[in-house]
């Protein structure tokens, strides 16, 4: 099935879950892979339906990735009114694959740009999500509510900070080892 | 400390065997050399020990070389060929390297036991060499206990290995030691039964007499145990060989030192000269048990088409006998090496399975068959 059909089918079975559908020809959000944006509180339900629905049957959660878009303050221009802060966001991108029906799908959950954005976990639906969410927590700082074991996976247990964030400052030293 | 212990235990072994000998089963050649008095036992024990250490210590040099070259050729690579002609001095160089290494004992290991363990395994094997007949007179301790004493001394190795594993204060070592204890002890059962078959056939435990009794017959081979009681003689040979593979911890039964699983098994924490003791023990044991099975099943010093009197009579014959025994034993050692580099490792529960469910019942059947052989054929009127 193509993206349109998948998105429509999803909208049918989870009414109101899809916040936005971004196609290939969207001028503001250019993308080579069309995706849907799902509300954070509906993501578990959507994942469940994706897995079980007979037409969709997405049996494989390929990856969960986080993207950091920090707040942007455009430069003030002479003669123009005060620029407004463009609020940033955290995106959690889910790539799905169906080995049964042989189609792909991309979903996103947009979270506000807090210090610790929270998103419900889908590890009860897809066991593969367990390690992916741990990695997203470790590197991007997105907390997954309900995760059975949310701890760092790639960095050391006592690491401070979330490295993939845009405002991350590399530490000058670690346990007495200097990084200069 | 284990340095001092090895000669002591080996000499004591030899002495104990001499004390156990029952009188006219043949003079210990060395005792005769030093005059017949009981006090001659001490110098003869010391000389005997030096001889054993020379042979059994020198043999592993050749065997390790054979293993490494053999492994190399099987794996399509040359093997060591730099140090000395054909790499013959490689083992000596490696031995020297091991000797000058720092002696590391883990801080929380049990010091005394840690140091004792390699000595125990080596002493057991070296002591057993005394009973191996190279020819009619070239046997260090000619005792009627022969093969029984050999296997009793080899069992010392089990104790040494378990002590080594436990004293290392390392969980991997303990695992290796536990597996090893289970394996070695279990395989002594089919081994013992096959030896029992041989003992029953020859009527003696004395290895020298077993070899002597295998002389003559059709083509000089008929009396070899492997050709007797067809097919049960051959079956006991195979079972005994497999059981000895397991006893000496050789692949495919090398779980106790399973390198890819337990790092190095029970000798993980051993380095330097202590490790070289375990190494020496493995190759000495390989040769020893091959020698034993040659004497019980493969005719000892007898060659086909050569008369037994010649082999046991003249000096030339005696030298030839020694060469024959050594060659046959080396051939069996070569088969051990060949098997090691060809087959994967068997898992511990499958090892136990093999022993108790297959080898032991089959060896029992062989024992029964050999016992009933003559009466059976007699009843059928064919003998």
């Amino acid at each position, binding site marked *: 099935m193509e993206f349109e059909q998948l998105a429509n089918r999803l909208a049918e079975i989870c009414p109101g879950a899809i916040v936005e559908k971004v196609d290939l020809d969207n001028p503001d959000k250019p993308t080579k*892979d069309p995706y849907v944006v799902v509300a954070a509180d509906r993501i578990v339900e959507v994942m469940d339906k994706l897995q079980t629905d007979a037409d969709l049957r997405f049996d494989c959660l390929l990856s969960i990735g986080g993207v950091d878009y920090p707040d942007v303050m455009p430069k003030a221009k002479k003669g123009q009114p005060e620029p407004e802060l463009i609020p940033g966001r955290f995106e959690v991108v889910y790539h799905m694959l169906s080995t049964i029906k042989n189609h792909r799908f991309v979903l996103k959950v947009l979270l506000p740009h807090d210090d610790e954005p929270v998103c419900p976990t889908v590890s009860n639906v897809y066991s*593969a999500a367990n390690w992916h969410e741990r990695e997203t927590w470790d590197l991007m700082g997105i907390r997954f509510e309900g995760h059975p074991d949310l701890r760092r996976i*790639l960095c050391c247990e006592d690491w401070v900070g979330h*490295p993939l964030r845009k405002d991350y400052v590399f530490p000058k030293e670690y346990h007495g080892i200097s990084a200069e | 400390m284990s340095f001092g212990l090895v000669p002591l235990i080996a000499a004591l072994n030899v002495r104990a065997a001499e004390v156990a000998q029952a009188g006219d089963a043949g003079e210990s050649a060395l005792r005769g050399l030093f005059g017949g008095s009981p006090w001659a036992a001490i110098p003869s024990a010391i000389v005997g020990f030096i001889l054993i250490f020379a042979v059994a210590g020198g043999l592993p040099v050749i065997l390790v070389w054979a293993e490494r070259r053999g492994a190399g050729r099987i*794996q399509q690579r040359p093997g060591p060929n730099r140090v000395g002609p054909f790499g013959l001095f490689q083992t000596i160089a490696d031995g020297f390297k091991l000797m000058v290494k720092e002696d590391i004992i883990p801080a929380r290991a049990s010091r005394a036991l840690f140091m004792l363990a390699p000595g125990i395994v080596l002493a057991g094997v070296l002591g057993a060499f005394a009973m191996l007949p190279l020819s009619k007179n070239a046997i260090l301790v000619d005792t009627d206990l022969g093969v029984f004493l050999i296997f009793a001394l080899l069992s010392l190795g089990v104790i040494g290995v378990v002590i080594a594993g436990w004293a290392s204060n390392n969980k*991997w070592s303990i695992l290796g030691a536990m597996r090893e204890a289970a394996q070695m002890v279990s395989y002594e059962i089919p081994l013992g039964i096959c030896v029992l078959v041989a003992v029953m056939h020859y009527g003696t435990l004395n290895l020298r007499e077993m070899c002597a009794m295998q002389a003559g017959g059709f083509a000089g081979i008929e009396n070899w145990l492997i050709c007797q009681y067809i097919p049960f003689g051959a079956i006991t040979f195979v079972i005994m060989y497999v059981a000895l593979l397991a006893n000496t911890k050789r692949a495919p039964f090398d779980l106790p030192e399973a390198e890819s*699983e337990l790092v190095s098994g029970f000798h993980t924490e051993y380095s330097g000269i202590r490790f070289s003791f375990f190494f020496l023990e493995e190759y000495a044991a390989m040769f020893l048990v091959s020698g034993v099975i040659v004497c019980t099943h493969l005719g000892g010093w007898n060659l086909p088409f050569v008369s037994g009197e010649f082999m046991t009579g003249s000096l030339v014959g005696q030298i030839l006998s020694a060469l024959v025994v050594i060659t046959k034993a080396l051939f069996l050692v070569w088969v051990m090496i060949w098997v090691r580099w060809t*087959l994967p490792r068997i*898992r*511990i529960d499958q090892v136990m399975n093999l022993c108790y469910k297959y080898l032991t019942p089959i060896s029992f059947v062989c024992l029964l068959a050999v016992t009933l052989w003559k009466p059976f054929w007699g009843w059928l009127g064919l003998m």
Partner: protein
Amino acid sequence: MSQLGDVPTVGNEVVLDVRTQDMEINMGPQHPSTHGVLRVVITADGEIITSARPYVGYIHRCAEKIGESVTYEMFVPYTDRYDYLAAMNNNIGFCMAVEKAADLEVPPRAVWIRMICSELNRIASHLLAFGTYGIDLGAFTPFLYGFREREWILSLFEKICGARLMYSYVFPGGVANDVPDGWFDEVLEFCDVFEKKWRDYDKLLTRNKIFIERTKNVGVVPPEMAREYGWTGPCLRGSGVRYDLREAQPYMYYDQVSFDVPVGRGEMGTVGDCWDRYNVRMEEMLQATRITRQCVQACIRDTNPGEIQGDKPKTLKVKPTEAYVGIENPRGELGHFIVTDGKDTAYRLKVRGPSFCNISILEAMLPGTMLADAVAIIGSIDIVLGEVDR
């Protein structure tokens, strides 16, 4: 009359509380058979494992963060380093993602060469998996036999790009060099010789009774469990699911070549056991030889020497967009999700390493197996820690 005094009894049996403790063993970062720096903390009751906790991250080199600060061409050598045994495939995956994001055209000759390199690398990677699996189980010789052929492949790669393991040969828009003279003939010769040698490996290890006993019915992963844990590649096919990206969603010119997709059938034991996964890899090597031959013939027939780089600006700046491309690595689906913002570096680069997803199953799969089986299972999943940690 009991002479033991005050002893707890149930009926006629004495019930004693023998306090034993499960042993906690560290299959540490340095271990001969964890295929890299993987740490598994195992709690074992004798030989049976009661719980296993894998720890990864020992070789984390923040490739994703580096991707945000170097240009696209400069990032290609970093892609080599995650799955260092299949470096060509990593290069290709990343370059395809960049090409999709930037709408770059790749000339046909470059595509055929990429396919040849990809399949040869698949053979090399599977040969190493075959060899090290033998060593894990105690068979030391197949490793050297496999490496004999692997050396040939590595020398082929050395001829084409100068490197044996970390190629950095494939760049966005094409490949770096054209093939030297005689290279295609040598590749065809290799394919012929390799098919003969493959029979030796098959007899030596695959059909060996002891090997079969060690791997059949061990580490059985039913297809539902495999799907749930996001398994892809030979592991998933070993569990009986016929899904190969080259066949289902062909990229490059895989739709123009014919090949079979081996699937685990439970030939020796249950579907999805270690033997099945291992056998899928063995068979895939033969299929890769088939594909390589067809690619070489097509390349010689259809393309002209020299056209190996498409039209591409000197500094590649990609307009803001997002793209995901997944390709079939020897270990599974290697995915690159790239977010661009008009600069010459990526804004965000997410790498989906198949080994990372495949290994997450250990915690659920190991309890109940024996220690020796743990080694067999980890070996059969065939992970590369560089890809797990990136």
